[in-house]
């Protein structure tokens, strides 16, 4: 009913507008047999000024209301730098924005035909063209240089700390599989073939590789403050994208093509909460938990590449802790590997011909091969 009523009101509104428009056309000012735009130009001239004011007031309100709600400051080494680059670019384009918009709308107001002046035939000026080619070129060169330098640094394998930790994240519909290398710090080998990949071993881990025996899967992404981490990324089924908004980390996960991202977290979850405690917006009460927002703050992992109907649900918590706390967490994790149980279940293991059949039809169980 509400829908129908609003529809009826809208139709009515359109009818009224058309009638007004018709009336305007019948009463238009004529000059030399043509409709004069004098009054319309005058009106729109003021509207141009009005819009200019509206635009800057609106922009200022956006900054006032929305900036506090935005992501907090970067919690990674490179993130601080790219944020700086973002801010400095924002400043430059902000200045250009203000000046060009003022010029555009002010000229539209100042030189509209209702002022009764003549137009000035001024087809070109090469000096001006050179000026407004060279100045943007210089500014852009600076931005390009800074951007390239930062970019090459982020992806420079030479610049990596040899003592970094390595974590493997694999996207699938609709979840993240987070694999840690366990105590030995080395991942067991993965073999993507029919013999290894199975519903119980989605990653195709080769259990014959002893390095795999202490690997474990985590339900949260645990990171250590100031300890460099290399994320080894992949995807099972479709494209995903590994996105850590607070750390300014994003890298696509591509089936069949490994990718990686190296970064250094710089603030523990607790430190970030302490920081947010001082921020006005984060004092507000979260209606769902009834606690101040800063108290329940957490880092999160998201998917940033459309991967299916539940794309928006690929959430994992991310926790950054001090080394000591990390070690405690590490000690509590159980490896995926289940030692062979051949002795206790002899019926199922055997002979050479069964293992051949296995190659065709993957039925490999956890820890059995």
């Amino acid at each position: 009913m509400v829908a129908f009523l609003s529809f009826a009101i809208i139709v009515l509104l359109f009818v009224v507008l058309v009638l007004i428009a018709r009336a305007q056309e019948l009463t238009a000012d004529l000059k030399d047999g043509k409709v004069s735009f004098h009054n319309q130009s005058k009106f729109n001239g003021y509207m141009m000024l009005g819009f200019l004011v509206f635009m800057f007031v609106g922009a200022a309100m956006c900054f006032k209301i929305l900036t506090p709600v935005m992501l907090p400051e970067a919690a990674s080494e490179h993130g601080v730098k790219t944020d700086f680059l973002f801010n400095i670019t924002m400043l430059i384009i902000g200045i250009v924005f203000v000046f060009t918009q003022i010029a555009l709308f002010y000229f539209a107001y100042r030189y509209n035909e209702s002022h009764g002046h003549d137009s000035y035939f001024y087809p070109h000026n090469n000096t001006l063209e050179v000026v407004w080619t060279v100045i943007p070129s210089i500014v852009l060169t600076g931005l390009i240089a800074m951007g390239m330098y930062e970019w090459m640094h982020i992806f420079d394998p030479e610049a990596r700390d040899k003592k970094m930790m390595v974590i493997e994240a694999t996207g699938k519909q609709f979840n993240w599989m987070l694999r840690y290398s366990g105590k030995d710090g080395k991942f067991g080998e993965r073999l993507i073939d029919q013999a290894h990949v199975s519903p119980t071993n989605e990653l195709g881990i080769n259990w014959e590789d002893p390095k795999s025996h202490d690997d474990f899967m985590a339900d949260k992404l645990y990171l250590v403050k100031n300890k460099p981490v290399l994320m080894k990324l992949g995807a099972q089924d479709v494209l995903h994208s590994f996105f850590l908004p607070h750390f300014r980390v994003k890298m696509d996960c591509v089936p069949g093509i490994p990718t990686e991202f190296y970064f250094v977290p710089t603030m523990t979850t607790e430190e970030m909460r302490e920081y947010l405690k001082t921020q006005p917006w984060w004092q507000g009460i979260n209606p769902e938990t009834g606690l101040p927002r800063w108290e329940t703050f957490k880092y999160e992992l998201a998917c940033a590449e459309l991967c299916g109907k539940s794309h928006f649900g690929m959430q994992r918590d991310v926790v950054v802790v001090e080394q000591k706390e990390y070690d405690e967490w590490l000690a509590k994790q159980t490896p995926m590997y289940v030692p062979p149980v051949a002795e206790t279940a002899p019926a199922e293991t055997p002979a050479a011909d069964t293992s051949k059949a296995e190659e065709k039809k993957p039925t490999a169980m956890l820890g059995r091969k």
Partner: protein
Amino acid sequence: METATAAHTDHHADVHGHEEHHHEETFLTKYIFSQDHKMISKQFLITGIFWGIVGGLLSVLFRLQLGWPNETFPFLESFLGKWAEGGKISQEFYYALVTMHGTILVFFVLTGGLSGTFANLLIPYQVGSRDMASPFINMLSYWFFLGAGVVMFFSFFIQTGPASGGWTAYPPINGLRDTAVNLGSGLGFDLWILGMTLFIVSALLGGLNYIATVLNMRTKGMNMFRLPLTIWALMFTAVIGVLSFPALLAGCVLLEFDRLLDTSFYLNNIIINGNLLGYKGGSPILFQHLFWFLGHPEVYIIILPAMGLVSEVLSTHSRKPVFGYKAMVFSILAILVLSFIVWAHHMFVTGLNPNLGAIFTLFTLLIAIPSAIKVFNWIGTVWRGKVRLSTANLFAIGFVSMFISGGLTGIILGNSAIDIQLHDTMFVVAHFHIVMGVSAFFGMFAGVYNWFPRLYGRYMNETLGLIHFYVTLIGAYAIFFPMHFMTGLPRRYYTYANFETFNNFNFLAEFISIAAIIVFLGQVLFVINFFYSIFKGRRVEVEKTVDGYDYGNPWGTTTLEWSSPIERLHGNWPGDIPAVHRWPYDYSVNGREYIPQTEALKPGEVPHE
């Protein structure tokens, strides 16, 4: 080229009168299977308006979900049935909406509708030609466009729904057919590929024709530097289309092979629920290269015609030559060249070689230079003009404003290091909607309001036009300016409720949705104005009558389109095609308000060249 040459000879031969152009026409040949460029232009425009309304409506639907993720809208169920059970848009349908919104607006409205309308209308008129190089191919171009649209529209009504895997059609999600885990990737996506194939055929037929016409069919005296900027822009647009659309076609054909014939062009080691599928050795990234090899030039295919229209409208209504004509031409040329070497900036975080990322950052940011030149020249055109603030000109000014706002944030996104964070977030959505969506629409509206008299012999209503303009200008800024602040929010999310991080912007999402609905209603007003004015609009004033033909010039422009009678004749000019003696921007010179291109130079007058 043979057709072009034949038509060329014909156009020189037909100086002996116009009678042959007045053969009997039936309803079918005049309105349906027309080979007249003006009628084809109207066909493109009205089809484009249809698609504009459909595409806009889709965005209103998904804005309902984004603005009020916890509400239900029972009336939706009555229209959409199983796609909105209980009045809540389903996840599958949400993704179908965003996918088809993108496809329709990028291709069917802002490529087909925009280029198709104005290239067809303006190229023959403004270069001084009786029609396109090949009117028949031109007709085919429209019919392939319509066919593509019919296929796309049909896909909304099949049981499994239309394509839903994003307008970018990335595999593997769109490369695996009939797998339970995939999204709208069944018949709907096959139809998407079929529709796009027909669309590409249409774009190529049209594009080749536009280029041939501009290069070969210019009237006497119309050398290249006497072409209005509209024609330069439309020709360069066609060149970009002809060079880049084939890459998309190849990409799509290979994708369909993967889907139907189980090839592995884009697929490798796909594991679904722990079952390894048999695809080996392909690369999903390859498709992205092929897609964006068109996809990036595509945004210039969209924006260049708008730039051309705006240059012309600003100059005409400011009663002042466009500032820096040659700089404008060369900056379009620079954009054309650069548009082909920046595509990988859409792929900065796909894991591509960092060296490539650096190079693509360089080229991408270079595009800011010709763009800046154009902006300064437009502002210079308005400066000290005698500006008539008609609806057409307001839209042109609005275009410049939008292009500045949207173009500037491109400098942020084009910088790969910053793009790591912003890639695939709402910041990108805000950026490209302003710079190529809203801007291109503003250019298109400027064009429609300005050349409506040429299409129908009547003006569009100014009152409705002004309401339309202010609703669109304020509304579009209200939607997309605050959206820039959603810097970390991933796009294509059905709801942000699963994340504490992204849950802070609900009030803004609601505000944006309200603005989007109002803007949509504003566009409905445009459509009402359009059809109202076709039948009831104020007629173009007759300035003189020669040989029984009425002539007028509604905006006082110099270009050739108004040297032809107000009535739209097949063949454009009743007598000889007029010769051209001067450049197209002689406004406010020699004590005259404007001097048409057809007017011979006075003794001693030096042409502006």
